[in-house]
């Protein structure tokens, strides 16, 4: 639970995050907008922003609004609620301990790093949001609590995919705005330092601005019901949705509400272009399927988003029509604002302190640069890398079993149930306490995810590349057809040219695999090292998230990593080749050290003793298969056999 912190970093003191802050404020105007998912690299202040927003709400908007954080390893009984052991044992009555979902009612539920959350926790949150009820059917308890909360989630772009089916329930999917420039960063750091040294002072300094912002929210809440979304607006939103191939129709509804809330925050009763632009950029564009499905094509000729001209219009309109509750200082700042400086609160006066910078929360001022959001954020959400961290003792509590409890987690509910019938005989005259004996103890049995993550690294260079890619795709779908049995998942990395590309992030879905693998890029050199590194990242992420096993499968004909030729560049190429080999040696060490199961499938036409593929297998400690005529079924069989072999060896 949360008691309002005495101090929080003022929302108005933040630098950057103009769009994110607007989105957050919109959720206060209409809670049916459901929340904000903020995605960006580590260390950019995402969580701080969310906490600061929480502080703002509790201090200025609604003192009773809870701010509840969901930790990454949250168990079902904490999230959904369960038996309150202490009280139940003391009173002999069944007492409930409320879960986080119920506790968040009327306030905010904060999930830092959403993709790290266990699949079930995500499903539970999504379910509660869908129903407006937190259902607890656990440990002999059956209770329901009404719950309405704003979901505040952050995500770090990583190999692990953002769970979009939960993200889809919140209106705003905001990507990290463009890197703030050095001067602004400097300003941010200075403010944070000041806050660290003397929070009270900074808070006092911003007190007035925070209050003004709160007043703006209050006004917007009153205005909101009167903001009409006419047929023209609805049409515009529906058309944008179609243009972006947004999946489902929920987004249309959310976008309409977002436009209304944004208008209300401007102090206006009519929706203008800028409101629609905001809604499209934060609600519709990030959901674009066009980008996810045909990334390659979209990169070259993506459909012209309807926003730029709208934005243009918004700019031409200048200061907007309803300065009503605009504070004077904001009005002044607008005058100073440079005509072209639209970069999320950027100022071209570097020496400026807070007072001279355009306020990104000035809703009637210049629209922050929203066009960047339209550039396929979904794709960028799946790249990046982070260090390896292993976790043990995770997984889901499935059922409770009677066994030696040493070193295991005790299942409280089941233990009590086992002990309950004996209480009459065990209690001595008038005694209240519950007697639990050794034989009553039940421990939790955790479901390990039995599944394996198969990571295919496919050499997409050279003459046989097309064939290899096709069969790899066939193998992927073949393996996934059986995935329901083992809960397996598959990822595919293609390496060629200068880089290795993650074509298919880990997924258990045949549908998604088919869609993503439609594009089969081929040709170019062979940056094997890059592919091995990417695969390593995936293994790390899988291990981090639980007990998933992983198998890296490398499909290559083992030709030299860089094409040899007799021309003048030959020497340079030779040097580069050595360099590449050294790189691979380094990565190979990591593979061996981390004990990563791997398999090298050699697709050369003729067998020779010493090929690069053989050497590679030796280096990384992989199994080696010579498979000159690759076909999907054969490959799938080899992969399965290898997987069975390596897992048996454990």
């Amino acid at each position, binding site marked *: 639970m949360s008691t309002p912190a005495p101090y929080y970093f003022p929302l108005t003191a933040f630098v950057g995050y103009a769009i994110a802050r607007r989105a957050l404020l919109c959720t206060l105007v209409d809670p049916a907008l459901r929340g904000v998912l903020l995605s960006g690299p580590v260390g950019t202040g995402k969580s701080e922003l969310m906490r600061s927003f929480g502080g703002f709400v509790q201090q200025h908007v609604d003192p009773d609004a809870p701010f509840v954080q969901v930790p990454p390893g949250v168990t*079902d009984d904490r999230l959904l609620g369960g038996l309150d052991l202490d009280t139940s044992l003391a009173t002999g*009555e*069944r007492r409930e301990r409320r879960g986080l979902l119920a506790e968040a009612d009327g306030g905010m539920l904060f999930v830092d790093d959403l993709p790290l959350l266990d*699949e*079930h926790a995500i*499903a539970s949150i999504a*379910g509660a949001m*869908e129903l*407006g*009820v937190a*259902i607890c*059917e656990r*440990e*002999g*308890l*059956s209770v*329901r609590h009404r719950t309405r909360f704003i979901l505040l989630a952050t995500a770090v772009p990583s190999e692990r995919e953002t769970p*979009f*089916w939960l993200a*889809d329930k919140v209106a705003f999917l905001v990507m990290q705005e463009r890197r703030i420039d050095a001067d602004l960063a400097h300003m941010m750091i200075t403010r944070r330092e000041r806050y660290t040294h003397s929070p009270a002072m900074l808070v006092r300094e911003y007190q007035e601005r925070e209050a003004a912002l709160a007043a703006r929210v209050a006004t917007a809440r009153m205005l909101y*019901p009167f903001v009409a*979304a006419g047929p023209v607006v*609805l*049409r515009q*939103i*529906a058309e944008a949705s*179609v243009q972006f191939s*947004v*999946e*489902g*129709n*929920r987004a*249309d*509804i959310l976008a309409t*509400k977002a436009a209304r809330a944004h208008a209300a925050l401007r102090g206006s009763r009519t929706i203008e272009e800028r409101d629609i632009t905001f809604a499209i950029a934060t609600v519709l564009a990030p959901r674009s399927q066009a980008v996810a499905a045909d990334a390659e094509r979209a990169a070259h000729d993506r459909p012209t988003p309807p926003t730029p001209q709208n934005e243009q219009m918004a700019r031409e309109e200048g200061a907007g029509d309803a300065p009503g509750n605009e504070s004077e200082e904001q009005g002044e700042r607008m005058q100073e604002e440079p005509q072209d400086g639209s970069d999320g609160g950027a100022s071209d006066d570097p020496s400026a302190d807070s007072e001279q910078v355009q306020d990104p929360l000035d809703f009637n001022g210049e629209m922050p640069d929203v066009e960047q959001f339209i550039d396929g954020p979904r794709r960028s959400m799946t790249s990046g890398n982070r260090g390896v961290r292993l976790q043990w003792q995770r997984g*889901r*509590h*499935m*059922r409770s079993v009677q066994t030696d409890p040493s070193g295991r987690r005790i299942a409280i*509910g*089941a233990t*009590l*149930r*086992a002990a*309950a*019938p*004996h*209480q*009459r005989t065990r209690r001595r005259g008038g005694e209240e306490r519950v007697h639990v004996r050794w034989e009553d103890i039940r421990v939790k049995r955790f*479901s390990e995810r039995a599944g394996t993550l198969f990571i295919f690294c496919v050499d997409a260079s050279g003459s046989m590349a097309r064939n290899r890619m096709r069969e790899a795709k066939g193998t992927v*779908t*073949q393996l996934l*057809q059986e*995935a*329901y049995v083992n809960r397996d998942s598959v990822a595919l990395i293609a390496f060629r040219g200068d880089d290795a590309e993650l074509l298919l992030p880990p997924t*258990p*879905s*045949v549908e998604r695999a*088919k869609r993503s693998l439609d594009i089969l890029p081929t040709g170019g050199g062979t940056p094997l090292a890059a592919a091995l590194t990417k695969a390593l990242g995936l293994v790390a992420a899988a291990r981090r998230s639980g007990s998933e096993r992983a198998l890296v499968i490398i499909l290559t004909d083992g030709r030299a990593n860089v094409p040899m030729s007799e021309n003048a560049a030959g020497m340079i190429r030779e040097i580069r080749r050595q360099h590449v080999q050294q790189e691979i040696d380094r990565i190979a060490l990591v593979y061996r050290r981390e004990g990563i199961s791997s398999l090298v499938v050699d697709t050369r036409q003729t067998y020779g003793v010493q090929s690069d593929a053989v050497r590679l297998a030796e280096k990384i400690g992989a199994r080696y298969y010579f498979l000159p005529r690759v076909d*999907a079924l054969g490959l799938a069989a080899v992969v399965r056999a290898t997987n069975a072999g390596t897992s048996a060896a454990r």
Partner: protein
Amino acid sequence: MTNDSNIPIYPFVAIVGQEELKRALTLAAIEPAIGGVMIMGHRGTGKSTTVRALAGTMPRIAAVEGCAFNCAPEATAGLCERCSDAGRPLAATIEVPMVDLPLGATEDRVAGTIDIEHALMHGAKRFEPGLLARANRGFLYVDEVNLLEDHLVDLLLDVAASGVNVVEREGISVRHPARFALVGSGNPEEGELRPQLLDRFGLHAAIETEHDIERRVEIIKRRMAFDDNAAAFIRDWQGPTEELRERIGAAQRCVRDVRINDGFLSMIAALSAALDIDGHRGELVMTRAARANAALEGRDAVTAVDVRLVAPMALRHRLRKDPLEMADPGSRIAQAVEKIVME
């Protein structure tokens, strides 16, 4: 839904589009023997909104008052222990149960378990019914069904097949009726479903994003109206809701009398054979669904229209999967139907 939360439910009849889904649910409501509905499709297309709206449009049912299993007052078989032993004096009408099975549920709450409070206080074992009991004679709804834990899937399969829940745990030994239609929804991108579970669903409704601009606008409009004033919105749709309720009620009463001639039966068999479908559940479901559809349309005999309408829903999930096929299996079925039924 069992409206224990007092949250207003969007009216079934006000849902724009999604005709196949609405039809599949309505047929399952008319003829429970069809065996539930599986809904697969995109996010945000109103899957769970539609499912949760269903119970509110169905005729209410009579149940023994205070019975944890919603036993039917007039029934002679398939009753819980208490209702088959004692006389059943008091009957109440209840809304058809629509029970949510949350993914985080534990096995003991789904199947039922020992009443711990009673045991602690009185030292006696008493069975405390779970969700399966509550769903008896109604629907059990699993959202994101492809994420359901395997051990819960096993339990559901077992009970759905037998209609009886057998509990043998913690020294308790109970069997009680648990006849329910399973409704599951999910997004195919979240993972595959086990074939045994897939087969358990009578109908499979595919659901897609509405692309027509006018309809999209209508969807937003209605939803905004509902969110702004739910009570007024529900009132506005009261008429059509009652109308549908009566139609379903009438169909429920006459569905078992709908005739289906041998010509159509052999057509259904031929369709299954042409599509190379294993087992006969598909044929059985198609027959029942065709009759339910005829009943809904007020006909006393099945026509080609009925067969054509229900074939994709009844067969879609029973086709063999081709790893490399991209197209929706629905079109394959439609082709077969055109060839066989329409000649």
